[in-house]
């Protein structure tokens, strides 16, 4: 039996940067399901459609748009609460419950690809 996923509600916050975000869904062909492909910034549905068409119109048969603020999101990979105190409480609670976390305290959770160099010539800020 598969355990039920423990999802948390993603707090609805303004995602405009600063233009409002529209979630974009496209269908590759008539027989494919709609798929979420990110969001575009636009002041109106028409502008969002125009923008999404420029990015995806070269192949999608359908483009659907939804104001990002209108979406209720529930996820198993929720961010911490927005208050520092809440985060500490949540972390402590998890520790007390013995819940397994993905964070390895020795490596601080990092998954560095084997042999991956830690700094690059191609790096903003790579000092001489």
């Amino acid at each position, binding site marked *: 039996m598969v355990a039920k996923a423990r999802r948390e509600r993603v707090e609805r916050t303004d995602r405009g940067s600063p233009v409002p975000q529209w979630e974009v869904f496209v269908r590759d062909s008539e027989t494919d399901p709609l798929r979420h492909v*990110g*969001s575009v910034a636009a002041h109106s549905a028409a502008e969002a459609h125009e923008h999404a068409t420029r*990015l995806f119109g070269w192949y999608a048969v359908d483009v659907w748009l939804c104001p990002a603020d209108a979406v209720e999101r529930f996820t198993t990979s929720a961010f911490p609460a927005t208050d520092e105190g809440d985060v500490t409480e949540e972390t402590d609670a998890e520790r007390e419950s013995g819940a397994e976390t993905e964070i390895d305290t020795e490596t601080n959770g990092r998954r*560095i690809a084997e042999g*991956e160099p*830690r700094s690059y*010539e191609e790096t*903003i800020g790579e000092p*001489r």
Partner: protein
Amino acid sequence: MISISKLLCDLDAEGDGLRYDAADESNTHQITKRRQRRPVVVWNTTRQCNLYCSHCYAAAEDEPAPGELTTAEGKAFLDQLADYGVPVVLFSGGEPLVRDDLEELVAYAADAGLRPVLSTNGTLITAERAAALRDAGLQYAGISVDGRPERNDSFRGREGAFDAAVRGIEHCLDAGLKTGLRYTITSANAGDLEAVIDLLVDVGLDRFCFYHLDYGGRGAELVDADLTPTERRAAIERLCELTLEYHDDGEEIETLLVGNYADAAFLVEYASERFGDARARTVRDYLERNGGDPTGERIADVDYCGNVHLTQFWQGYSLGNVRDRPFGELWEDETNPLLRALRERETHLTGRCSECRYRSICRGASRLRALAVEDDLFAPDPQCYLTEGEIAPGDAFAGGSAD
């Protein structure tokens, strides 16, 4: 990012690839043999800025945006980056120094194994904050200046911004922080390049990073103020000459180019003309490993609300939001047709790019400029300044000596 000084002054004609590989674990300047596999991540920590720059890609304002990542959320986001193996996080804005938790976040990033670097207008850097950032683990500060004092202040919307930025540079240097200049080239300030370098070398700076204008944010409103391709070629050629002159005089300044990978092809041609074909092959070999335009691959941007962008200039489109899904999952998800197409863009490029012999080291340069001007994601970059003869099909200088 393309290093003029490295390619023209520091690479010998033969064998450099292997020589520099040996420096992987050292603290000295290095060239990696492998392509970077995880992106450098620019984090726009806030929309708020104390200046109002005419070319700001982030469309910064004098107030923070609603929904900006809090300190706790910022730390969780940095954990996501560390977990994914991101090598570098670039704290940007708006103006990152308006956040009073900047030092705390920099320290958190450093403790998590990320390399924290900073992009700032420099005007808020005091001696105390420079020291605090150094102590927090900051590895580098890039400070923006866009011309001689009057021109810079006009660009940046505040009288005295140039002098304040220079004071910021001095505070960083005094604190022992690696510090460099960031300069966005437009038709208005291209003539100031030389004077600004001369002035800041006198201040003690030795690293100069030149950005081509990309057409995102308020920069999209400046398309008409951008250099023409001919002017751009002249500006890049002058930077090459200036770099060589400084090095010939014993001043080993570092000069870098960002935002137009036509520069890669130009540097191969320039190296051939100036130093001969052997050097051109070495330069091309290095640039092949470098990987061409990094959009959607070696550079990523996360805005103050957590939206993930293909570069810092692609603010109009987001792959998703780190509040919903970890950064690494969003970046790895190639079911996104746009992300997948950009990562195999050589097969989609059209027009003069489609058979260009420098396609592998340029990769079509800016897709954002193509989109803004041509309304076509895979059209040639309107700011390609290479001649038809230079881009003719063939394998000029391919198969470098370093292999």
